[in-house]
């Protein structure tokens, strides 16, 4: 079940658009926050608020790579190994990241802390190697820096803000 606060947040997004359907992406982000991925219940709840069929919502959710249909780690790492980054050693660095976490690409650590996803260009090619953790940028990585970041997430000294970025009040 969507919390009352989540429902209110989705309702506020509706004011930005002339159709309810336009709020589907913001609504799915909000619904995904509760469990880190989109449960069938979350899909149904979003469909109900937007007055759509659950299958329509599921098909939209399935199209976009930032919506997860299966459980993921507490923190999702998107590591860019696309061509511009790979020209600056990103493939080798990704191997080191995976080795440190004991996972293969697309895998989740045994403790459920991290999922590692290789990413297509993240618009930071001049700062490779780089990754996003929960969509926050961590750039110009070195092995030392990487260790600090992973430790920081494990100990809670680094936190990413999962709250909705875009406010919904009208001008």
């Amino acid at each position: 079940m969507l919390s009352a606060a989540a429902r209110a947040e989705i309702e506020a997004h509706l004011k930005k658009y002339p159709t309810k359907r336009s709020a589907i992406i913001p609504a799915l982000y909000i619904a995904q926050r509760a469990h880190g991925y989109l449960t069938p219940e979350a899909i149904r709840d979003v469909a109900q608020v937007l007055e759509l069929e659950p299958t329509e919502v599921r098909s939209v959710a399935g199209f976009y790579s930032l919506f997860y249909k299966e459980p993921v780690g507490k923190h999702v790492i998107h590591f860019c190994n696309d061509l511009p980054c790979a020209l600056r050693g990103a493939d080798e660095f990704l191997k080191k990241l995976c080795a440190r976490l004991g996972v293969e690409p697309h895998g989740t650590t045994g403790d459920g802390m991290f999922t590692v996803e290789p990413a297509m260009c993240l618009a930071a090619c001049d700062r490779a190697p780089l990754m996003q953790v929960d969509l926050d940028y961590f750039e110009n990585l070195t092995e030392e820096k990487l260790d600090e970041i992973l430790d920081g997430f494990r100990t809670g000294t680094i936190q990413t803000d999962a709250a909705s970025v875009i406010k919904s009040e009208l001008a």
Partner: protein
Amino acid sequence: MEHVILRHRNIPDLHRLEVYQAHGGYEGWHKAVTEMKPDALIDLVKASGLRGRGGAGFPAGLKWSFIPKDIFPKYVVVNADESEPGTFKDREIIERNPHQLIEGVALACYAVQAGTGYIYLRGEFKQPARILQKALDEARAAGLIGQNLFGTNYSLDIQLHLGAGAYICGEETALLESLEGKLGQPRNRPPFPALVGLYSKPTVINNVETLANVPPIALNGADWYKKLGTEKSPGTKVFCLSGRVNRPGNYELPLGTPFRVLIEDLGGGIIGGKALKGILPAGASALILPASAIDVPMDYESVAAAGSMLGSASIIVLDETVDILWATEKMVRFFRHESCGKCTPCREGTHWLVREMERIRRGEGKPQDIDLLLDITKNMSGKCFCLLGDFATSSIVSTIKHFRGEYEAATRTNGQ
């Protein structure tokens, strides 16, 4: 070099409203709303010769003039879905000079008399979106965006919208579909968005950098702008330099600057003093140019004449150590991943291109596989629903053209 777009490099804290306003910010906006007729603003942008910076290079003022006067509401949609491999200019504009973008959006809205502007940012731009939202809030609080602006009867609302991870949404009609809450898949054209766009209403879609050019034009005039760049490609352009260079980054330069100045002078040359092998002038979508293109001027006409396109000007530099087949496989993998699946030539073609490249790189390719690759591209080129399908073939076609020897060496041992 005087910056027109990356002015924050000269002016600290330009992202703050009071700093932006202290440097002429929103003066053009105030003047337009209080003193100019919308058509006069369109004429001004037409006269400046400003061309779209998202890739196609279409004249911005002309695009605005296609919007019918008698159909309401109308929309301005900003393409901030910056996803082309090697492109990172819009992000810098959004994060460091957000008010110049907002003022550009506002001017575009006024020019076509749209009451709402939507800025569509790629989902991965959570942090840039946060900065932009803050700037937008500041502009609203200062009465620069909102109801009855400057005591006139013109009202404007600007909203941000985050995507959720799909390269195809940079294609303007796919972006509109996504903004309407559907799968981000391209629409058939005609009708064009100028007539039937967002919510089936007349819609202007411009790139972030294009709109960031508009406030300086509104403030300083078309003649001032035309003094920058070349006759057919006026103004400056933000070039994204990446790959095997010492100083990658964004460089704002007059259009028509040769690749050599960007790569050797500004970019500090190639890492380790190696030799240049090839240049991708517009990310993974571009036909690769050989090292001999180093003196080609970077403007729309010259890069096209040299056999590629300037596109969004994301220049990826490959040096002599780069395995061309490896780089090409990376690029076709990108397009396979990002194909939206709507049309068969792209969905299936990108799949087969990756399979063939994998086979050749595993050492299992035969000499005839080179022509097979070209045959697949012929079945895609011009036959896909949108340009993404055509772009997916660029790396294959152009690397076989310029580096066929590497394909032959990789397939030679397997005979016929």
